[in-house]
């Protein structure tokens, strides 16, 4: 078999302040013409580095130490700059995560596609413009003539990714490398983009390398999947083999940690619904630009219950979580915690209210929501001291909180940059738990984490709820995760509740068409 791209014993290292760090320890890959290959791994596994190195796009600090990159038999690991310019875009194209940032913000998308075309072919401007328009049409962008003149900030994330795909396909490359092309996009958009990618590569007999952290996504779209861990390939197999008979222990762990339609947590269920804790009625919030962010939303949460809030970006789920936490004021409606109408206390005064300690929030980005100049100890102690905790006992209280969140007290002296993503997530949880709240608002607490870390955090949350009778308002775009943790869920669209009920039955037989669409869009691998 003649491989289109063949990576042999590729070794890459990065020069850092702490010296040379090896990122790839001899990676071997190969892909034939027209084939689809998935590369799966957690952060730091070297999957993106492999792709960037293959195109020689590593930044200044990165260096190829050894190995060969064979493109149709030609070693491009040491190719000239001239050869690389001809290769990139025309023979191998690449699309990236975060499509909006991947496009030049002050150049119209049409001009950017024309740039890519004219970099490889001597076309007149008019001819290039005509081809760019055709490329936009191919990725099914509505009103392509008008979009040619649009700037990236005027387009949605999904549209920007379509533009990126149009740009990458414009010169008809033989291989397309897609690095997390759908991460950060809504599930429905994610499905549309992946379907488009699959269709286009099939139609043009193009080979596709799909790099993703999502095992199910790779399994669904690729004929072969390569699993990477810490700069090494641990296993390459067909998706079915990978799921049914993973050979390597790491693959086994990864498969086990990936949330699927059937994964469960030990303590879920518990319809042990205690007394009513939170009662939200007719909540409405209009934004400054006039759009209705939250439109007449009512729900309740009982003590010890976990309610899932599901919806796509712009559906109002984060706004609701901020309103319930009293970080933002509603325009109308009531928020009752027990007997107290906490919605009546202005958000700017709520820090003085006695209920402040009862409602706490865990933020989405565990790293960004920690003060980089605070140690883990400070981060947990600061809100406690503000709430009037006993200063002499603070050391003990913080240590207890840390232990409850599964954070080793030895780590309390560290700063955020010295901690891993999972440890930072635990600080966020410990900080929220420290004041002994009754209700915890969890705003996508695991969205930025690797699946194996996510699995552990979910288990922790599940155990805390069962043991301490905490109530959760769990906000997430990942339906599998919501289903694992929550017995009941609410589906939001455009600020309105479109469906609510028992999680299992909502998944099994969704009532509203929107919920049905969401459920259908979950990447899953059918055996």
């Amino acid at each position, binding site marked *: 078999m003649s491989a289109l791209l063949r990576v042999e014993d590729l070794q890459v290292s990065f020069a850092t302040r702490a010296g040379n760090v090896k990122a790839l320890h001899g990676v071997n890959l190969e892909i034939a013409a027209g084939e689809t290959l998935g590369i799966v791994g957690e952060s730091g596994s070297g999957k993106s580095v492999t792709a960037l190195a293959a195109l020689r796009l590593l930044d200044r600090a990165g260096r190829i130490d050894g190995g060969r990159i064979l493109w149709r038999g030609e070693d491009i690991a040491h190719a000239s700059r001239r050869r690389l310019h*001809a290769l990139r875009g025309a023979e191998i194209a690449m699309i990236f995560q975060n499509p909006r940032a991947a496009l030049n913000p002050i150049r119209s998308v049409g001009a950017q596609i024309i740039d890519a075309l004219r970099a490889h072919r001597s076309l007149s401007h008019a001819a290039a413009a005509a081809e760019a328009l055709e490329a936009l049409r191919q990725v099914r962008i509505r009103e392509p003539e008008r979009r040619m003149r649009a700037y990236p900030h005027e387009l949605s994330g999904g549209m920007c990714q379509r533009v990126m795909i149009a740009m990458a396909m414009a010169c008809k490359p033989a291989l397309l490398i897609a690095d997390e092309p759908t991460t950060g996009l809504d599930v429905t958009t994610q499905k549309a983009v992946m379907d488009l990618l699959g269709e286009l590569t099939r139609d043009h007999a193009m080979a596709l390398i799909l790099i993703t952290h999502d095992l199910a996504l790779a399994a669904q779209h690729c004929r072969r999947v390569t699993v990477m861990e810490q700069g090494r390939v641990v296993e390459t197999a067909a998706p079915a083999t990978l799921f049914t008979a993973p050979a390597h222990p790491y693959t086994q762990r990864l498969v086990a940690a990936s949330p699927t339609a059937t994964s469960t947590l030990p303590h879920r269920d518990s319809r042990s619904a205690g007394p009513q804790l939170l009662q939200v009625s007719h909540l409405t919030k209009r934004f400054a630009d006039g759009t209705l962010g939250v439109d007449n939303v009512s729900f309740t949460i009982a003590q010890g219950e976990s309610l899932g809030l599901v919806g796509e970006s712009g559906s109002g789920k984060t706004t609701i979580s901020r309103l319930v936490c009293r970080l933002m004021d509603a325009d109308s409606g009531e928020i009752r915690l027990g007997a107290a109408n906490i919605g009546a206390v202005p958000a700017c005064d709520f820090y003085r209210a006695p209920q402040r300690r009862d409602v706490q929030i865990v933020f989405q980005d565990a790293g960004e929501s920690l003060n980089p100049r605070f140690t883990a100890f400070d981060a947990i102690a600061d809100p406690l001291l503000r709430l009037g905790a006993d200063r002499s006992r603070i050391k003990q209280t913080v240590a207890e909180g840390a232990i409850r969140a599964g954070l080793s007290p030895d780590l309390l002296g560290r700063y955020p940059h010295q901690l891993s993503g999972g440890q930072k997530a635990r600080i966020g949880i410990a900080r929220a738990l420290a004041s002994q709240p009754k209700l915890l608002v969890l705003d996508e607490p695991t969205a930025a984490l690797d699946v194996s870390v996510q699995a552990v955090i979910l288990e922790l949350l599940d155990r805390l709820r069962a043991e301490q009778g905490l109530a959760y308002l769990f906000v997430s775009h990942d339906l599998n995760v919501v289903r694992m943790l929550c017995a009941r869920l609410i589906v939001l669209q455009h600020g309105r509740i479109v469906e609510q009920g028992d999680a299992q039955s909502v998944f099994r037989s969704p009532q509203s068409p929107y919920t049905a669409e969401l459920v259908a869009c979950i990447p899953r691998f059918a055996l």
Partner: protein
Amino acid sequence: MTKSAAVLRLAGRRLAASLPALLGVVVFTFVLMRVLPGDPAVFFASGPSAGQKEIEDIRHQMGLDRSIPVQLAFYLRDIGTGSLGHSMTTGQPVLKDLEERLPASLELTFAALVLALGLAIPMGVLAALNPGSTTDHAVRFLCTLGVCVPTFVSGLLLIYVFYYLAGIAPDPTGRIDIFASQPPSHTGFLVIDSLIAGDFDAARSAASQLVLPAVTMALFVLAPLARMTRASMLAVLGSDFIRTARAMGLSRGRIVFVYALRNAALPVLTIAGIVFSTMLGANVLVEKVFSWPGVAAYALDALLATDYAPVQGFVLLMAVIFVFVNLLVDVLYGLADPRVNAA
């Protein structure tokens, strides 16, 4: 059409919003001048032998015998009617003095800014393309030198080398050779006016007079512009869309100049606006060294003579120019960056 309407609306709103600040500047300068030691009446009296009566008369004539709030009210009324008062030193209305001298300052500042940008941007780009290289260090060294050497030192040094030793530069006295004919004024910029009049000798003379002071000032502002260009280029070169451009096989020139530099130029534009305003008011040393008949030197002379009206007029003029330059920068920013909403 809608875009220009939006720009006009922005301009109108910004100018209206700047009025309180301008009023504050007027009042502050007015009070400050009167708090500073020195009595203009004594200064402008006929001589050291002038009697108390004469001084009192001058004081009364200048309106200085009234209380400060009353004086201020009169001054504000004058501004309202378009008068900035009279200069005691030149004997002319301040407005006329400023009108005569502002073009000289503007010509010098513009020339210096163009020169500085022309040097700083390539330097910053080169430094950013090879961070840590010899070029980078050389650029850093030049910038440090430019900032460290005061303008009067570098100005005198340039005169010494190019006028006294080499004899290439004309004598550093004013804007044009005294024997060259003054062109009719259109723009107030002698080089441009001479060219319009078709008098190439005068244009060359004016340009050669301009070179040394402009270089002196350009050296001084090289550092902020070059350093900003470097920092901004480094940030842009590390961004995702540059990686995309590389992945698409775009040529290096296109990536550096079209993709990176246009994005990196935005913060430089802001700095350039600030640098321009600062230079215009702060180039007094350069104007003094080269006997350049600009507004800053005029204001300094007036200040030393405790001549109130010219100083107040000068400060107000600078404030107005600052407002306009910032407005211009914002409008340009809006045109260059589609994400910035002009409205």
